[in-house]
């Protein structure tokens, strides 16, 4: 089974800090995704990547950037954290095809104070 690991379950950061959220998958998959989840809004796609050094904006990229230097690692960067970026962040990668769907990490709950 694919394993997706997000480096932190909980983070508390100060307004204006630069924040790095890390995601690692163990199956050499090309596609990786970052979502944020907020009550009443569901999951919204921030950025995705199809391969190393490739990135595409999702629906809400403002205030975020990403880095994909190695295939297994996809990092989400908050350049200058703000309180409205307090949220649950979820990383995902598609399965090997067929009927496997996406595998998600456990999520990082970020609080910006």
């Amino acid at each position, binding site marked *: 089974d694919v394993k997706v690991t997000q480096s932190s379950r909980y983070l508390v950061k100060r307004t204006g800090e630069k924040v790095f959220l890390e995601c690692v998958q163990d199956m050499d998959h090309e596609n990786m995704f970052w979502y944020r989840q907020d009550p009443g809004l*569901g999951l919204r796609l921030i950025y995705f990547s199809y391969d190393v050094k490739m990135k595409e904006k999702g629906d809400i990229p403002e205030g975020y950037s990403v880095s994909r230097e190695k295939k297994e690692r996809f990092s989400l960067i908050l350049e200058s954290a703000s309180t409205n970026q307090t949220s*649950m962040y*979820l990383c995902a990668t598609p399965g090997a095809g067929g*009927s496997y769907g996406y595998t998600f990490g456990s999520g990082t709950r970020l609080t910006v104070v």
Partner: protein
Amino acid sequence: SQQGEEDPQALSIQEGENATMNCSYKTSINNLQWYRQNSGRGLVHLILIRSNEREKHSGRLRVTLDTSKKSSSLLITASRAADTASYFCAPESGSQGNLIFGKGTKLSVKP
């Protein structure tokens, strides 16, 4: 990419009853996926149904797909308290394979 919209937003049933959740979408799809999320955790893939399939089963789960109505349903039979979670549908369309999730149905199964 398009978003699935789940209905109802919340559902409360007794243990042993069946739970039915619906999903609607707007354009043609390659497949449609259902996911479950326990409180505060990541999503777990439950089942994928392809556009040329009408029904699929997995254990106590039954998914139907009606492409003419652009709708899908997820039925959980003989529900258990452990089924309490939020359930999301995600239609996959286009060549990029992105999934856009709706707001989910929050299922509460009372013992």
